[in-house]
């Protein structure tokens, strides 16, 4: 159920930002429009990204040395942390419970699909945001009527500016890959 919910959240976000048809998804613009500055720097070994919250504002840090596709995914992942953790749905801000915590949340390369539910959710968020279901289905259909082959996955990955690994998982999740 959880993935479907995340799917809806990202879809709504894209529609609200008038990006429901944008391929590749401008993930940095989305972050900036959410008030999340994205900064690239050396984050140290084994770290892909960080989300820093200070004074009620959050900032995304992305590993400078990473591949563009990787950076995009990391940004999506950090947006996910921000978006899901703070429950920013709706417009009501409860003043008494205004965010007063400061948090530095990491994303190490090792913990990627780990067991921490928040990491799993953030990863799902990144996948849903960067590879929106309706667009992936549409683009996949353009390439092949039947099951997709390896070259198609590569083409889709390039089109959406994500890694082939990320696209493969996404296609699998959406049931668009033939079971080998």
């Amino acid at each position, binding site marked *: 159920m959880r993935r479907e919910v995340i799917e809806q959240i990202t879809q709504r976000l894209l529609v609200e930002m008038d990006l429901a048809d944008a391929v590749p998804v401008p993930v940095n613009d989305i972050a900036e429009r959410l008030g999340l500055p994205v900064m690239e720097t050396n984050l140290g070994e084994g770290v892909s990204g960080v989300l*820093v919250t*200070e004074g009620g504002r959050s900032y995304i840090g992305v590993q400078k040395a990473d591949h563009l596709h990787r950076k995009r995914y990391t940004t999506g992942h950090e947006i996910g942390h921000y978006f899901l953790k703070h429950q920013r749905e709706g417009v009501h801000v409860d003043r008494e419970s205004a965010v007063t915590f400061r948090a*530095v949340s990491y994303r190490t390369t090792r913990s990627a699909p780990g067991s921490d539910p928040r990491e799993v959710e953030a990863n799902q968020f990144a996948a849903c945001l960067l590879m929106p279901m309706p667009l992936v289905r549409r683009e996949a259909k353009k390439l092949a009527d039947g099951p997709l082959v390896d070259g198609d996955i590569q083409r889709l990955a390039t089109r959406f500016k994500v890694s082939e690994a990320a696209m493969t998982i996404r296609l699998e999740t959406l049931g668009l890959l033939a079971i080998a």
Partner: protein
Amino acid sequence: MREEKAFYEALGRRIEQCRSAKHMSQEKLGDALSPKLTRAAISNIETAKQRVLAHVLVDIARVLSVKVGDLIETPPSQEAPASEPAAFKRSLEEASLPPEAVAMFTRRVDQQQRLTAKKTTKGKTA
């Protein structure tokens, strides 16, 4: 809606407090306003049964020799209080981020906070 109610209740309480501090009756306060208000109207304002108009509030503040802002309860800033720059820097270092990343975040956060501070002051003076 409930927030609005609480706002006018707080406003009424402040008016009543300032009036009492001046040893002024509701009737006296009403008489001192121009145009005058009845004792009942003042009572209604103080108990939030009636919502005061902006220009009347200015006049009430004048009679009570207080600033309008002293009568109005402003909401606490929605921005969370910022921690000390040093503490923030420390938390970044404790996260074992490299010095350049620490420098970048502290610089960016500092920038943002100065920007927010500027905006807040502007809003107050305008």
